[in-house]
């Protein structure tokens, strides 16, 4: 058992952790980051499905009861394994009522008040709009299908350096070419340059209060090959703790800490949202792609390009209409999902049961190159609840890496089911028009619903009854503990959430700096972007002063 001291202890190195680590280190605080996953560099990011390659080292798949969560598990967190789509959430999202019957976001947060923070992130990462030449065959096909059925379609804003991208479609296991602007290329190296320490393979177990009003954080050290094995344990004391372990793990750490910290706010481990996500697999008729949409590749093929690309490049936003009722708004985005865990959930369109395994399923696997995956992000009802925490981590680990069984329970309400059904029906209408394809949603029967964007298990809000965090991200009744990851987002966003998680983390920092100062830490707020740019800082200067309470 080892013990140590720092000023600011951050749990997790994804968007929430890395952004806070950079600003606090740059401001002069002693910052230590504990990250449960390994520290991989670009040379470690394999093009390989082999167990033990970066595909299994860098992310976790946790099966719950009715919901499974796919998340990052490495230094850089979700940013290393995500597909780098970075849209801002539409205006109506901040006005959503969700399951509580009144506005769920804090009154002070709207799209207008968050836009300057989005701008900071956009400059820091950086995020850029793609043009039609960046759009992959699969994105182009989706755009053409949308157009053919009278809809619009947009190239999505992304955090990709297109000049470096080889369209290898391996980005879920990390980007070997450094084309994906993960946190390993911006906030984290800047945090390290300012003296922050990152300890990989440190999985936080629980938090307890020290006699001087600070906190002691207990961790286990994880074996770097077999994550089921703990090699040692220890603790570290800090004056401020920032939890950013992800929406599937942050509430579990707090649940396990309740015995030592005292009662948690009601919102801890409740109101989980899967961002209303659905995946549909279309199996294209190549002849119709050519005849109906007029598409063909340089090599003469019409499509057959499922393997080629870089994640989502085109989305249809026609249903992101604030005038539509809640639970009927959603985006429809083209996405690549690699073989492995995902492929088994694809169903034979219109087939006889069972549709997820068996001889008909094998026949559609043979047509894999003609698959197009459409990703639906709808408005769910925040109905996920975490049960009793497992002894360590956020799941009982099954495999050496990647696969675990968690305590999340998700029983979709009629609102959520209705939103899913509407989105499924629309994408079917688009993809099956004039015989373009046959399409079916992934089955929920095997591992429950499936999200790659877990949210809201420890959310901000104005109301103590339905939120775990004050609007400044401080845990209710536990001063000095902040949460800055996806768990703080109040509900489903109808678009990819990384940009909003990052903007909220940026917005939380001035208040955290102020709390650190009040606890005697010599730290200042006001760092530029990680590369030294300052326009984003200028945009939030006045906002930051008010958030810090000055």
């Amino acid at each position, binding site marked *: 058992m080892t013990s140590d001291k720092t000023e600011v202890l951050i749990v997790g190195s994804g968007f929430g952790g890395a952004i806070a680590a950079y600003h606090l280190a740059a401001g002069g605080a002693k910052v230590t980051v504990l990250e449960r996953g390994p520290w991989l560099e670009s040379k470690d990011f394999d*093009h*390989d499905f*082999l*167990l033990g390659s970066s595909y*299994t080292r860098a992310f976790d798949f946790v*099966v719950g009861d009715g919901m499974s969560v796919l998340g990052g598990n490495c230094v850089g967190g979700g940013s290393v394994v995500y597909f780098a789509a970075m849209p*801002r959430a539409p*205006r109506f999202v901040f006005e959503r009522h969700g399951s509580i019957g009144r506005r769920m976001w804090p009154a002070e947060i709207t799209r207008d008040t968050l836009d300057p923070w*989005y701008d900071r992130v956009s400059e820091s990462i950086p*995020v850029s709009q*793609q043009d*039609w*030449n*960046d*759009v*992959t065959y699969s994105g*182009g096909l989706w*755009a*053409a299908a*949308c*157009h053919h059925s009278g809809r*619009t379609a947009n190239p999505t*804003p992304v955090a990709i350096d297109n000049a470096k991208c*080889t*369209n*290898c*479609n*391996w980005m879920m296991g990390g980007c070997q070419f450094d084309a994906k602007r993960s946190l390993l290329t911006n906030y984290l190296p800047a945090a390290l340059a300012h003296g922050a320490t990152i300890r990989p393979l440190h999985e936080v177990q629980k938090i307890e209060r020290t006699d001087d009003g600070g906190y002691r954080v207990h961790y286990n050290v994880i074996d770097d090959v077999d994550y089921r094995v703990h090699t040692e344990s220890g603790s570290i004391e800090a004056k401020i703790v920032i939890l950013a372990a992800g929406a599937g793990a942050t509430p579990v750490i707090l649940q396990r800490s309740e015995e030592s910290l005292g009662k948690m706010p009601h919102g801890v481990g409740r109101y989980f949202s899967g961002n209303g996500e659905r995946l549909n697999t279309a199996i294209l008729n190549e002849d119709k792609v050519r005849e109906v949409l007029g598409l063909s590749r*340089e*090599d003469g093929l019409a499509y*057959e*390009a499922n*393997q*080629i*690309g870089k994640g989502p490049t085109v989305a*249809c*936003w026609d249903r992101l209409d604030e005038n539509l009722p809640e639970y009927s708004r959603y*985006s429809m985005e083209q996405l690549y999902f690699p073989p*492995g*865990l995902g*492929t*088994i959930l694809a169903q034979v369109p219109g087939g006889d*049961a069972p549709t997820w*395994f*068996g001889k008909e*399923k*094998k*026949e559609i*696997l*043979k047509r894999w190159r003609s698959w197009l995956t459409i990703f639906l992000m709808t408005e769910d009802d925040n109905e996920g609840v975490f049960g009793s925490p497992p002894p360590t981590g956020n799941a009982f*680990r*099954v*495999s*050496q*890496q990647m696969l675990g*069984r968690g305590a999340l329970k998700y029983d979709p309400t009629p609102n959520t089911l209705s939103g899913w059904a509407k989105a499924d029906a629309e994408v079917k209408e688009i993809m099956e028009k004039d015989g373009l394809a046959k399409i079916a949603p992934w089955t929920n*029967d095997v*591992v429950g619903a499936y999200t790659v964007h877990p949210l809201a298990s420890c959310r901000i809000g104005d109301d103590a009854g339905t939120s775990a965090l004050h609007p400044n991200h401080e845990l209710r009744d536990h001063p000095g503990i902040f949460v800055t990851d996806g768990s703080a987002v109040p509900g489903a966003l109808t*678009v990819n959430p990384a*940009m909003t998680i990052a903007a909220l983390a940026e917005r939380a920092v001035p208040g955290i700096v102020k709390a650190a100062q009040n606890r005697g830490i010599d730290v200042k707020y006001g760092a530029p972007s990680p590369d030294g740019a300052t326009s984003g800082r200028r945009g939030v200067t006045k906002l930051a002063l008010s958030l810090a309470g000055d």
Partner: protein
Amino acid sequence: MTLEAYADTIVPGEKRHPDDHAIAGVSEGPGSVEAGAIELLETEATGVTAGLDFLVPMLNAHAKAYAEEHELALDPSLPEFVALSYEDRVQLIVKLTKNGHPEKDGWVSLALFCNMAFDSAPHLSTAQAIADGHPGLLAMGITKPDADGLWRFPNYSYGRQLAELHPDTTPSGSPA
């Protein structure tokens, strides 16, 4: 042989020889077994290997009960699950993997890895597996990498505007 029959129900293949009982032979071309399902299940990293010794007798016990329930006569020289027809194997797996079945997690894990043996071959290095003619990866049409083992696609785009932009797109390229 029982595990082979399970894997062959998830991704079926053709019989390896006329007396092949494990493979039901309902599909042309290799299936999960030939793709390496048993090798994958016996790879410790999966976390299911230690459980196989328990799952095999459980599966045969379920098959025996299924046969009794449906008044099927099974070939006594074969493990009970192997003795079932493909259609009956399917029905039994549907039952075992259904929501609410107390052993669902185990049977789903087994199905996941049997499927993965075919569609991603995680017991093998992918580039090498393709070079060696892995039947699942080849059936899916996954292309060969460049000489350095990495994939690159210099041609990737239709290269033209294919839809009108949403009218409420902001200068940042996001929805309004």
